[in-house]
């Protein structure tokens, strides 16, 4: 035994939906549970039953358990118990809560990743309702939002969250830690229908290869068939220089993101609202991603109270060619989604271009004009892309040509 009392989880006046467990394994005396919970009258019995089940699962017959509960759900209590047990005894056994049938959905390479909501990996309160906010993806974060001493328990909590929380169709992502610890993280996340793994602080194609190798190994052991996509995050000057190599280092990579806090600190400059200091890096990343045929994703906007600033930043980001941004607060989701989606003016203009092209083609004309402007094939292609995007986003019906008001359509005919 390493130490006599293990402590896992969180407690305090501001803690919600979590619990702290202090576990002491003894050689005699049976199991003594001291439960302190505001929901004791309603759920006390089931909490105690769960704790006994976990202890029995790990073959522990004599223990003192003190649980200070702030309304934790069962999968949280189980995760905290498991984390405490694993501090005291060496075991490879995982106490897995049921896998929710609703979580058995898959993703696709080309789905939208406009908005991805970051959820600190050791904070259950922020995870529980996260799926309600309609983000394209949720990111259970094991990296920067988790304190170093909490890394192990966060990993277990995130695993249980992947099994037990309904994220309502959002793409299920996990940001692992950098390096060796990140490879360990994979063991607790890959088997639980994670769709995409974010790899932080990528500086070379090698970083990707290491992760990919470990994922393949885990998949072959448990005979897992579904594809796990990757999204490298580039956060340093070296990473930016190697961005194209990184972007095409694996066929599982579907997007590449930039992390500007670390990047600007690597450069030794201040991160500004204007973002001139990162203009080159961001542009370079967009070009690298496009060249590799994947989505370029922008850095998060860190002032959660400044909605106007966020809106402006998203529009600038979209103009540079980015296709999405991380969200650090649910309130950012709708602004980011709307910002990257085509707006009404864009859609209207694209409709006109596509119709003009169609009309010219039917008449056998080689040159297409709209008003006084000539329309080249790339312009038509871009307009068609906007139309397709609008249809996929539900901003336009697939049958839009036939639903156009008659006079608008007739001008072009």
């Amino acid at each position, binding site marked *: 035994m390493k130490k006599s009392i293990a402590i896992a989880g969180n407690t305090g006046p501001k803690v919600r939906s979590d619990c702290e467990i202090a576990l002491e394994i003894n050689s005699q005396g049976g199991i003594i549970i001291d439960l302190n919970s505001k929901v004791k009258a309603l759920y006390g019995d089931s909490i105690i039953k769960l704790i006994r089940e976990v202890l029995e699962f790990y073959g522990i017959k004599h223990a003192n358990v003190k649980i200070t509960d702030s309304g934790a759900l069962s999968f949280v209590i189980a995760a905290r118990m498991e984390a405490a047990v694993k501090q005291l005894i060496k075991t490879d056994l995982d106490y897995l809560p049921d896998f929710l049938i609703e979580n058995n959905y898959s993703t696709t390479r080309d789905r939208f990743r406009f908005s991805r909501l970051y959820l600190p990996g050791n904070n259950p309160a922020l995870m529980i*309702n996260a799926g*309600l*906010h309609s983000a394209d993806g949720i990111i259970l974060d094991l990296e920067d939002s988790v304190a170093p001493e909490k890394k192990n328990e966060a990993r277990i909590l995130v695993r249980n969250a992947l099994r037990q929380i309904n994220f309502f169709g959002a793409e299920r992502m996990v940001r692992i830690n950098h390096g060796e610890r990140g490879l360990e993280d994979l063991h607790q996340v890959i088997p639980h229908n994670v769709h995409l793994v974010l790899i932080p602080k990528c500086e070379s194609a090698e970083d990707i290869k290491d992760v990919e190798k470990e994922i393949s190994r885990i998949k072959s052991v448990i005979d897992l068939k579904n594809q796990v996509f990757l999204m490298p995050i580039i956060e340093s000057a070296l990473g930016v220089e190697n961005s194209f190599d990184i972007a095409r280092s694996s066929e599982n990579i579907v997007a590449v993101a930039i992390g500007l806090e670390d990047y600007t600190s690597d450069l030794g400059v201040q991160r500004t609202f204007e973002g001139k200091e990162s203009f080159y890096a961001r542009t370079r990343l967009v070009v690298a991603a496009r060249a590799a045929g994947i989505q370029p994703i922008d850095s998060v906007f860190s002032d959660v109270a400044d909605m106007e600033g966020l809106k402006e930043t998203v529009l600038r980001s979209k103009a540079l060619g980015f296709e999405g941004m991380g969200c650090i*607060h*649910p*309130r950012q989701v709708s602004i980011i989604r709307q910002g990257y989606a085509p707006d009404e003016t864009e859609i209207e203009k694209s409709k006109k271009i596509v119709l003009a092209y169609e009309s010219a083609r039917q008449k056998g004309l080689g040159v297409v004009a709209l008003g006084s402007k000539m329309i080249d094939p790339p312009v038509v292609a871009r307009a068609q892309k906007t139309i397709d995007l609008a249809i996929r986003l539900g901003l336009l019906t697939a049958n839009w040509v036939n639903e156009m008001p008659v006079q608008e359509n007739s001008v072009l005919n």
Partner: protein
Amino acid sequence: MTVNTLKNAAGRSVPLEINGQPVIPFMGVGKYKPNGRRYAPPIPTCSDYPDDGNKVVGSLAEALQKCGLRDGMTISTHHHLRDGDLVSNKVFELASAMGVKDLVWFPSASFPCNNPIIKYLDDGTINRIEGSMNGPLGRYVSEGKMKGTAVLRSHGGRVQAIQDGEVKIDIAVLAAPTADSFGNAKGTGGTSACGVLGYAKADSVYADKVIVVTDNLIDLPCFPMEIEGNYVDYVVVVDKIGIPEKIVSGTTEITKSPDRLLIADLTALFLEKSGILRDGVTMQAGAGGTSLAIAVFVHNILKNKGWKCRFGFGGSTKHMVKMLEEGQMGYILDAQAFDLDSVASIEKNASHIPYPVFNAYNYHSKGNLTSMMDIIPCKVPWSIR
């Protein structure tokens, strides 16, 4: 002690008598038809009041004595000074010092600042509270420490009980941010402005004796008067009736919780899609983070659609004032102002109208504003949140 009970229309066992008075069990909506006439206070005569109309007396103690304060009386106060109220507690401090016992305190609401009342429940000055009991006061009552039986009354039910004579107010002590020597009073002006005195109106009309307590005495007439001097017996001038920063409640900031904002957003969307929200809609905005947020989302929909809410019913908040001032709300009918922007709005916006609760929630009346409204936010009891 045995209590005679009966199963009411809602299937609950209820007593037939509370505090020695018979009560009518719920018979089902609209089933009970009241008979008789409304309660009325005794007829006064001008000869008992100063010819010059000056009803100012030296102190609250003097006014209470002149009103004949004695054991067992029912004393009412209103809650518009909210957590900054310096008047209600003072009444019972004086009563206690005078050795008066077994009073009934009949407030329109109570706040944490009223916790010292516990002292007067303990020493027998107060027998019971009828109205609202929150926080430590509520705990005290729940623990069975109060001598009489507590009676919780809704805002409308309170007005109804006053009007029907179910509760006979012996003395109404009405704090007034501005008043004149005749007793005309209003909720605006001075340093303790609370905007509206909507919940004090019925007390002023039906109480046997009415004392107006103000810290801002102005020359006659105090206009527009919400409390009319003709109902008032005495006017008391004190240094301070309230603590200004506590008069305005903290409930008018919209919630920052993303989950609650989502609930509010979806509610507004539901109102729009279901056709409940439309041009000419009437609504109440409510207080408390989530329902306030609904008002903000509703406002956006009204703006985008070019619709206008015909009138909004207060309690008013800065969010309603914004709707009024930006043209998405025709009128605010206001029984209480929840924040400083609303208080200011009453003074500057002609279509922001003080409107007593008399006409809103009272079931024994010739029509009920609540049944005429399209949207009323409803607070969900904490236990099922």
